[in-house]
């Protein structure tokens, strides 16, 4: 996959637009089972990322992803900053300059394991990993962009009946059941936005 400068800028704007447009929705999901700051935090982080354009898109794809991650770590606040920021930083670190699909699969796998280590968590605990892990599985199995975005949305929906075991929602115990996990929702929105922005121009 070769993402030219215009495609890299399109990707960044799509990610930021998704978080900014859905800030209220994410906040209201987080008010149900968390501390109610997820929407505003992600919006703050991605506004900061967008503010580093146009220079951000001048970087190579790996360097750009690392820079996005660092901005999110420093600006988001809340646990989602280090978690989502770690994903982007490790994704960038693991990618060659001109990745083919196998490189992307390997790099996202590394990035997801870094998120697991950062949050000392795994899939099944009602966190963003409940989107990242199943999406990674369909991606590795050869899914196209449409199927990846669909899996992301469905995986976020599947967190609704789950019991929270990590994060602020775990304090609620069984009362966390019946609400979609806000971190899963934001992860699915970011994946959907990335797929749409790139039209999944990944060579196999």
């Amino acid at each position, binding site marked *: 996959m070769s993402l030219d400068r215009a495609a890299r800028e399109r990707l960044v704007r799509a990610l930021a637009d998704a978080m900014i447009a859905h800030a209220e929705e994410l906040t209201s999901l987080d008010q149900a089972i968390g501390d109610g700051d997820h929407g505003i935090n992600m919006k703050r982080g991605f506004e900061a990322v967008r503010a580093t354009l146009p220079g951000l898109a001048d970087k190579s794809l790996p360097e750009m992803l690392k820079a996005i991650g660092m901005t999110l*770590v*420093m600006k988001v606040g*809340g*646990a989602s900053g280090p978690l989502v920021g*770690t994903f982007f930083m490790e994704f960038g670190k693991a990618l060659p300059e001109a990745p083919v699909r196998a490189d992307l699969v390997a790099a996202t796998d590394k990035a997801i394991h870094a998120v697991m280590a950062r949050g000392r968590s795994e899939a099944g605990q009602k966190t963003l990993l409940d989107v990242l892990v199943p999406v990674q599985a369909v991606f590795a199995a050869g899914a196209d962009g449409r199927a990846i975005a669909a899996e992301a949305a469905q995986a976020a929906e599947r967190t609704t009946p789950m019991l929270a075991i*990590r*994060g602020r929602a775990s304090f609620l115990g069984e009362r966390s059941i019946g609400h979609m996990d806000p971190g899963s929702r934001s992860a699915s929105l970011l994946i959907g936005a990335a797929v749409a922005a790139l039209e999944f121009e990944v060579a196999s």
Partner: protein
Amino acid sequence: MNTSNSGNVGIVIVSHSPKIAEGAADMVRQMVGNAVPLAWTGGDIDGGLGTNVAGILEAIETAWSPAGVAILVDLGGAETNSEMAVEMLPEDRRARVVVCNAPVVEGAVIAATESSGGSSLAAVKHSAEEFYA
């Protein structure tokens, strides 16, 4: 933020609420005076409830001691952001900063008391974590 030039283990207090962090630091000072380097941080970068990596890095710098720094945190994001901050430290400092698994107020007071007697970083962490173990 306040500090001293002591060679004892430094204490950093990280809370989502700047008021809690500052209040816990006041309680530590009342207990140990200026015998330990001490710093606190709280709030997100816009001043709302939350924690931020830059603030934590600055607090570690303020409370830095060659004997190391023990960080006391409140809820999950404070811990995750503190661990991220530790990883971003220069390599020679990284191994000398620990995040304690202890209640923030009680842990800070106990850790500072232990530190004020000249204890090692490991002993300071152990005392703080022992409290509710």
